[in-house]
């Protein structure tokens, strides 16, 4: 969560573009990663990420801060956008069949065996079901707590833990091969 997020959100609701800009700068990378790991195509992920923040901009006046982080709301929008996008697409291409070239930080790229590590992780996530993908991405990649994930996915914490456990078991099998 962003420091002083509640105040920033209120300013964004009032129409301050700088406030919305702060929210965008903080949350855009994680939304982009989430979308990219779900759809597998960079261009599609960019379009959908932009659409997510466009929707947020359109509907921010109706946003009510009820103690949940702003990210939960953004993740809901992202999930819905991905689902809508999948419905309108005529063909679906599995994640692990793609030649993807995501942007990797140059410093990290040197220490990372990109072809092996990255692709294996991406492929493994691509073979999880939607719920497991959501939990794995939000928990292990973005570092959200079970409570935050439950709020974003409209589930209780117990269900989130169960989904996480099953996802780990499946990933063990996939990454051990």
């Amino acid at each position: 969560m962003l420091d002083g997020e509640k105040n920033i959100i209120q300013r964004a609701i009032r129409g301050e573009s700088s406030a919305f800009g702060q929210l965008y700068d903080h949350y855009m990378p994680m939304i982009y990663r989430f979308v990219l790991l779900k759809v597998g195509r960079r261009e599609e992920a960019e379009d959908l990420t932009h659409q997510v923040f466009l929707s947020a901009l359109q509907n921010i006046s109706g946003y009510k801060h009820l103690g949940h982080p702003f990210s939960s709301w953004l993740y809901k929008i992202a999930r819905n956008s991905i689902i809508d996008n999948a419905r309108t697409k005529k063909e679906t291409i599995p994640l692990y069949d793609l030649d993807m070239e995501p942007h990797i930080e140059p410093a990290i790229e040197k220490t990372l065996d990109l072809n092996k590590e990255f692709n294996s992780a991406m492929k493994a996530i691509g073979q999880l079901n939607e719920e497991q993908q959501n939990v794995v991405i939000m928990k292990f990649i973005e570092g959200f707590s079970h409570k935050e994930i439950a709020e974003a996915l409209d589930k209780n914490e117990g269900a989130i833990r169960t989904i996480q456990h099953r996802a780990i078991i499946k990933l063990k099998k996939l990454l051990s091969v």
Partner: protein
Amino acid sequence: MMEQEIISKLKQLQNIKPDPGYAGVSRSMLMALMQMPKPRRTWFLLRQPQAQPRITLAAVLRYALPATIAASFMFLMLGGYSTMRTAYFAFNFPGLMNEKILAAELNDFEIQIKIAELQYHADSSKTVSLALNEAGYYANNLSNDLIKNEGDFLNAKNPTNEKIDEALNDLIL
């Protein structure tokens, strides 16, 4: 593979970042949109291909169905009014609904007009003849000078006076 190893592999995916060029353009577009006044912003958003509403069942139910229901209601109201009007006249004035009856009534109406005209003319003739009788009665009491003056005006040798005839005709007819 241990769970921790899996988690560390997954954490490496945190290094995925959006392309800086894309991020800059996207941010600029959103900021520019936010700085637009709301009516213009709404118009601009509607022109965005991403903002075009998809034709989904939900959209049809939300927009098309109420419009269809309203149109049907109006049609029924107009049609119902027409039907009610027809029914009202059919109930109270059955003759209006039958062409033969209407034609017969029209014929009767024309005859009635002619009868009325004849009656009028007959009444007018009686009135004129009464007036002439009275005129003749009083004429006997008129002075010779006055009669003589009238005689110059009247052409006794010619019993018919076209002007009088015309006046009488106008009166009778």
